């Protein structure tokens, strides 16, 4: 693709996003709640689009299309079961929201630490989240590097691409904290969905219309319409992939922190339903993208190349190709900037705030702002190192974050859960997941995420039974939810 066209596309994207980021600045961001949670006043529409942009990274149009290319319709089932899992927000959302307001929580790890009355819990969860999410961000940055390198025929180097993505993520996070992230996210999600939908419509047209498209699949590649189909999606592989993602909306802090932010429960409802509709459409677009690549060019050695096959195909006018390239970069950047903010708020609140006694809110905010570029630069270096370990940690991220799920469910529904049980259920299964991923083993055929969930559930329950629960806090926390959310809004 023409390099000057690519630069023009990037330039226009940058200028519009920067404009939106500056527009988003309202009020003074002089405390943690304002900077990281938008004063808990986000409206439903922006919340929905921003939630979508944060959740859907470059994975969708690269990885999910690649999964479809390799295994067919199972990829659709995987992604839609994840989407059904977002229903967890209908149950956990109001609970996060109401205790967030009452106790002034800024981060999910702060909430869990306070609920179990343990600073060690807050610090441990914050650090383990960083351990898995920084490499995940690094892989997103590297994704942008590879995309620009591939699409420009090596004329834009991998490093240039990585630097561009890092700088964009820092700027969007820095200008106004969560406000600039939410607003630029909204714009980026529109880029993502409009651009990619157009491409799919073009491709289907190129392949002879929707009916012919489906007929081609049914006649020539029927195995791509069933599971296990060609064998790629065996049942165990399918659940190993799907279950960690099912819990994504409560296990991943960059999205669960969003549950503190809506202005009202009505705004949260708009966020939830808006996201589900966005996700439904975007999933279809990504799946058809993968199928089209297969029909256009079956037999690629590396299925992750499916995206560049589509983008460089003659069916796509170059301008549309550039729009989608910007869409994929936007998807990566909008995921990274949210992770940057969440991790820096965790570092400031849970690590610094708990280690240094009597640190004021203002000092935490100052530190949080210093940490944003530091985390971004760490991700940048990881992306450039291209170590195997980074890839392992990134792949392990959904499995590594799932170990917190029993502690989160327990916080809201089980008064007997204890701090020691949380520590055991986060640390031991977290290490187990890392070992399983590092040595690429599948004990009893089960993937790392399943082991993480099984081990952490067993440890959380059994250790709780033998240790002392913070009874007073548990009663106060859970009863407050019952009295204020449940009776008023969820009858």
């Amino acid at each position, binding site marked *: 693709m023409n390099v000057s066209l690519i630069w023009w596309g990037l330039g226009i994207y940058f200028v519009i996003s920067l404009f939106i980021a500056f527009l988003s600045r309202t009020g003074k961001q002089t405390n943690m709640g304002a900077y990281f949670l938008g004063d808990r006043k986000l409206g439903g529409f922006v919340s929905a689009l921003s939630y979508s942009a944060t959740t859907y990274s470059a994975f969708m149009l690269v990885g999910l299309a690649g999964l479809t290319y390799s295994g067919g319709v*199972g990829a659709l089932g995987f992604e*839609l079961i994840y989407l*059904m899992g977002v229903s967890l927000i*209908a*149950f956990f959302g109001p609970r996060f929201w109401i205790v967030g307001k009452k106790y002034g929580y800024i981060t999910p790890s702060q909430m869990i630490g306070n609920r179990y009355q343990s600073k060690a819990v807050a610090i441990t969860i914050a650090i383990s989240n960083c351990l898995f999410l920084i490499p995940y961000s690094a892989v997103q940055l590297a994704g942008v590097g590879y995309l620009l390198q591939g699409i420009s025929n090596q004329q834009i180097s991998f490093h240039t691409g990585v630097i561009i993505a890092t700088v964009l993520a820092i700027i969007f996070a820095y200008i106004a904290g969560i406000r600039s992230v939410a607003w630029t996210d909204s714009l980026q999600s529109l880029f993502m969905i409009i651009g990619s939908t157009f491409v799919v419509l073009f491709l289907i047209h190129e392949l002879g219309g929707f009916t012919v498209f489906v007929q081609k699949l*049914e006649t020539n590649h029927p195995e791509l319409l069933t*599971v296990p189909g060609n064998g790629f999606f065996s049942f165990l592989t399918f659940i190993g992939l799907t279950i960690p993602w099912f819990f994504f909306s409560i296990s991943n802090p960059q999205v669960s922190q969003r549950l503190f932010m809506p202005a009202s429960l009505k705004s949260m*409802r708009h966020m939830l339903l808006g996201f589900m509709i966005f996700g439904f459409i975007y999933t279809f677009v990504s799946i058809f993208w993968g199928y089209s690549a297969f029909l256009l060019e079956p037999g690629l050695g590396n299925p992750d190349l499916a995206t560049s096959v589509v983008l460089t195909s003659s069916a796509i006018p170059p301008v549309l190709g550039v729009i989608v390239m910007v869409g994929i970069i936007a998807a990566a950047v909008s995921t990274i900037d949210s992770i940057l903010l969440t991790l820096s708020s965790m570092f400031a609140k849970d690590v610094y705030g708990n280690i240094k006694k009597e640190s004021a809110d203002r000092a935490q905010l100052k530190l949080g702002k210093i940490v944003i570029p530091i985390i971004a630069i760490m991700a940048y270096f990881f992306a450039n190192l291209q170590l195997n370990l980074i890839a392992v940690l990134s792949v392990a991220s959904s499995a590594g974050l799932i170990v917190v799920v029993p502690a989160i469910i327990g916080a809201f529904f089980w008064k007997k859960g204890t701090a020691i049980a949380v520590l055991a259920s986060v640390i031991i299964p977290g290490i187990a997941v890392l070992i399983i991923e590092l040595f690429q083993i599948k004990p009893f055929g089960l993937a790392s995420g399943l082991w993480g969930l099984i081990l952490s559930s067993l440890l959380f329950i059994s250790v709780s039974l033998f240790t002392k629960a913070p009874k007073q806090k548990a009663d106060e926390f859970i009863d407050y939810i019952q009295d204020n959310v449940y009776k008023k809004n969820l009858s």
Partner: protein
Amino acid sequence: MKEKNWAILIGTIVLAAFIIPFTFLSSVEKWYGSMLFWPILTLIVIACNAILTKDWSNEE
């Protein structure tokens, strides 16, 4: 309907989403097999969420 019953209903749908494509639909090599089944279940779940959250209030 109580919150708990909604949880059971959605849980059952999710369970069906794991089991049925791998059993009854595993030999239906048509667009109206798994490719239609999963989206229908998802739309039902979205509708459940819409009903379940319809009374969430405007109160800040």
